[in-house]
Every structure is written in structure tokens, then in C-alpha cells.
């Protein structure tokens, strides 16, 4: 299994993306922002289409779209119903509607670029769309795998740097603000970080894998323990286990797409944690 180069690349990129998703997913669920993460993974698609229409590297479009959407959700959501019960706006679901409206707009604009691509005869947009939506962890080149790993490590380090104040601000926003923690700056920074993870993971392994790895391992960890560091470690361990087991399974079964295998195992672990706890 390790003799195949595509498999080594997949394991390399998958391992670090799983770690980044486990850590940021744990904070995402703590802050009740899963829908935001999901929306960010979807807006990557119009971003890539826009870049293709403009004839520039699709990665620029991906990052621009996710960061733009994160900012728009932040600005409009804050105005909507900020911190109704003394919790972050996301925790009570108040951001939901804003997220829905913003990412629908971005998808609509994506449709515009899709039409532009089709009518201008640039073609192949359908194929590109499918690759953006679902990626392929088995199709990574060596350079792409190292790049994905590097971005994931950078995201992990940044998260570690803001972890303590972020934890404080997520659990007790009012107290944190009173103590002089800059909660708004922290939420914006975290949204941007999430945007970077979303853009990189989407581009490397697909939006599908991103959502599965963001939601399921972290949700299982939150079910099992409320202790922050044990929870973070458990989320990472589950994400890694799902990734490695899924990649192995997809290698063994030729008809099984790797993203499907990883996500099914991750969600299976989550449902198992519901039985346990």
C-alpha cells in the first residue's frame, strides 16, 4: 500500500488536513458555527468558477470567496441578533438565516460565472465543478500534498496561538469581553482561519470530506468529554483514525471513493459515541 506514490501523497495530505479539521471542528462546534463552516465549503465552488472565468489560478478564487463569505456572514450576522443569551451569536442559531442568505447569493453569482464559462466556450466547467466539489485525495501530486500539509500545519499553529483566549471568548463571551479580551477580533480571526482551512481542504480533498471531518469527529469528542484538551485530542484522534481507515478501505476496494469511505467511518464513529455517552 505504501509503495504507491498516490497513496503516500494521500496519507500525507489526509493526515494533516484531518488534524486541522479535528482542531478547528472542535472550536466550530463549541461556538455553534458548523453551518458557517459548511457554507464556507460550498462557496469555494463559485470562487473557483469565478477564477476560471477570469482566467486566473482557481486557488485565488477559492481563498477570495471563502474569506469574503466569512466576512459578510460576520458583519451581517453581528447586526442580526448578536449574543442573545450571552452566548456567541452562533450558539443560539441566530446567525443561521444570515448564513443562508449570504451563501445563496454567492452560489447565484457562481451560476452567473458558470453560464459565462459555458457561453464563452471555455468549456470543461462541469468537470472542474465536480473536482472542486468533491476533490480527490487520490489525485494529489507530491507538491500538492506537501502544500496541503503545510497550510494545515500553519492553520494548526495559528489555532494554537489563539487557543486560550478563543476558548475563553467562546465559553464566556461577556466575561471575556469584560476582562479585556478582544472577542470581536478573535471571532474574525477564527472565521478567517476557518476560511483558510476550508479553502485548502476543499481544493485538496473536496468539500465533502471537509464537512465530514469538521463535524463528525468533533461532535463525538464533545459527546464524550467536556474537558477542552482531552476533547481536542480526541477529536484529532478520531479524525486521524477515520482518515487512515477510510484511505485503506478505499485502497482495498476499487469501487469505493476515498472521500465516501472516510466520511462514512467518521460519521459511524460519531453515531457510536451517541450510544456510548
Amino acid at each position, binding site marked *: 500500500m505504501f509503495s504507491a506514490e498516490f497513496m503516500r501523497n494521500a496519507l500525507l495530505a489526509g493526515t494533516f488536513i484531518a488534524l486541522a479539521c479535528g482542531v478547528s471542528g472542535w472550536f466550530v*462546534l*463549541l*461556538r*455553534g458555527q*458548523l*453551518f458557517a463552516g*459548511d457554507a464556507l465549503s*460550498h462557496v469555494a465552488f463559485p470562487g473557483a468558477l469565478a477564477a476560471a472565468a477570469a482566467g486566473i489560478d482557481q486557488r485565488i478564487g477559492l481563498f477570495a470567496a471563502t474569506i469574503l463569505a466569512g466576512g459578510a456572514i460576520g458583519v*451581517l450576522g453581528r447586526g*442580526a*441578533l448578536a449574543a*442573545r443569551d450571552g452566548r456567541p451569536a452562533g*450558539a*443560539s*442559531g*441566530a446567525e*443561521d*438565516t*444570515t*448564513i*443562508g*442568505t*449570504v*451563501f*445563496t*447569493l454567492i*452560489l*447565484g*453569482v*457562481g*451560476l*452567473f460565472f*458558470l*453560464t459565462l464559462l459555458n*457561453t464563452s466556450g471555455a468549456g470543461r466547467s*462541469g468537470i472542474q*465543478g*465536480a473536482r472542486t466539489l*468533491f476533490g480527490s485525495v487520490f489525485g494529489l501530486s507530491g507538491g500538492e500534498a506537501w502544500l496541503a500539509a503545510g497550510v494545515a500545519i500553519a492553520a494548526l499553529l495559528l489555532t494554537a496561538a489563539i487557543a486560550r483566549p478563543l476558548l475563553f471568548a467562546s465559553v464566556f463571551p461577556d466575561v471575556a469581553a469584560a476582562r479585556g479580551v478582544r472577542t470581536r477580533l478573535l471571532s474574525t480571526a477564527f472565521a478567517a482561519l476557518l476560511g483558510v482551512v476550508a479553502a485548502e481542504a476543499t481544493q485538496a480533498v473536496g468539500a*465533502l470530506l471537509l*464537512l*465530514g471531518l*469538521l*463535524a*463528525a469527529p*468533533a*461532535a463525538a469528542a*464533545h*459527546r464524550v468529554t467536556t474537558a477542552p484538551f482531552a476533547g481536542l485530542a480526541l477529536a484529532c484522534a478520531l479524525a486521524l483514525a477515520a482518515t487512515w481507515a477510510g484511505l485503506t478501505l478505499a485502497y482495498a476496494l476499487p*469501487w*469505493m*471513493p476515498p*472521500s*465516501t469511505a472516510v*466520511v*462514512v467511518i*467518521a*460519521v459511524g464513529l*460519531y*453515531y457510536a459515541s451517541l450510544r456510548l455517552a
Partner: protein
Amino acid sequence: MRADASSPTLGWNLARDASQLFEYHFMINALLAGSVVAVMAGLVGWMMVLRRETFAGHTLAMMAFPGASGAALAGVPAAWGYFAFCGAGALAIGRFSGTRRRSWSERSANTGAVQALALATGFLFVSLYGGVLGDLESLLFGNLLGVSDGQLLALSGVAAVAVAALAALARPLLFASLDGEAAAARGVPVRALSIAFLALLGLAVAATSQITGVMLVFALLVTPAASAQALTTRPALSLAITVALGLVVVWLGLGISYYSVYPAGFFITVISFAIYLLARLLAAALGRRSREAGPARLASAPRGSVIS
């Protein structure tokens, strides 16, 4: 994408421009289907926005992907797959709703897991099907201008059922949505209502997404309702505004796209977002003028103050 080569031209004669819209059968079908969908999505979406179940609605819309690919694999009409997967998805999401003390974050985690699983299944179906799924673009973004007479009839039937069911559930559902604990204490079956509403939402989303596509369902499901709820706290009035906005958005979008090369979905989304922004600005202006008049939004009203 117009079916006909004789492209219509926009002139200064507004009556002629308007009558041009009705010259083609496909355009009449599109307007009728769009109107039916706008009314149904507006009503169901209003309740969804009030209940803060936008993420659940989005997840149900995503069910169309395994639905369509599973139907292609099994060789049955795509609509069967849509409805089957939307129903199953509603039940899976509904497991965690209701009175049991689940935090919002926990429920959203379950919803996210259901969505990831559904997309993974859909992806598996596509690769088992071994090829490009018929038309990815129309699955994602719909085909408003290709509605057949049969589809229109089926859509109207589904919409009638959905609206009737919503009307039957409306009062207890409104009570349970605004104050679940008080409703449960009064003997309202909150959990059963919640699952029933999700099933209804699944039905509405499946019907809507066949016309507008998976990605653009929210332009009719969320945005008009969010605009209306930003403007007024009175349920009947904001429901009426929601439906009116939905209809305006669909008609304007279809009308403009008729004279342009770009698809209706794009115009519908952009117009509906522009209305939402205007509504938010208007609400902010009004709220600043009459802050003492109380909370600006229905969902943030004090407990039990709306249902009397």
C-alpha cells in the same frame, strides 16, 4: 437558455414587452411553476426561519444529490429519489429535535453528520453509476425554463398538500417554535410537531429544488422570509410579505432573464438578496427611531407575549 431562436427584444413599449413574455408555452409554465414554488417555499420557509432550522433546510436540499444519483443508479425517475432521500433525511435530523435538552450546537452537529453522510452516499452512487451524472448543472442550479406540463401539475399537487399540512399545524407549531417549554407544559406534542415540520420541509425542498436546483432553493425559502421577519413582528403580516416578496422575486427574475443570456436563477438570487439588504437597512432605521417600542423581531419577543 431560450428554446427558440427568435430572440425577443426589449423595446420602449412596455405592454408589448410584457405580452412577449407570454408568447411561449415554456415561459408560461416557468411563470406558473415559479409562482407555485414561491408561495409554497415562502410559507414553509417562514416557519423554518422562525424555528432557526436553516441548516436543516440546507441539509435537506443536499439530499437531492444522493436522491438524483441513487435514482439514476436504480433506473427510476429522479423525483422518486428526491422525495425518498428528503424523507429519510428529515427523520434522521428529527431524531435530535424536540423537547429533549439538546443544545443548538449538538443538534447542528447531528445535522452536519447527516449531510456529510448523504453527500458521501451520493458520491458513492455517482462513482458506482460509472460516469457523469446526466446533468450536474441542472441538478445544482435547476432548469426553470424547462418545466413540462406534467411537472407543473405534480408540483401544484405537492404544493397544495404542503400548504394544507402547514395550515393544519400552524397554530401549535407557532406556539412550539416560539416557546417550546411552555408548549410542552401545556401538552402540545412538541417532538412530534418538530418531526412533522421537518418532513414537511423535506417535501417543500424536494419540490422546490427540482425547479430551482439544489443550490438556489434558499433564494425562495430563506431570503424572503428573513426580509419579512426583519420588517415586522406580526405573524400574519410577515407571512403575507414573505409570499409577496417571493412572487415579486420570481417574476422579476424570470422577466429579466427572458431578455438576457444569463439564467433566471442568478437574477432571482441577486434580486432576493438586494431586497433582504433593503429590509435590514429599513429595519435598522425604524428600530433606531422607535427603540422604546420593544424588540424588533418576532423571535426575540419575550416569552408568551405573541401567543395570547
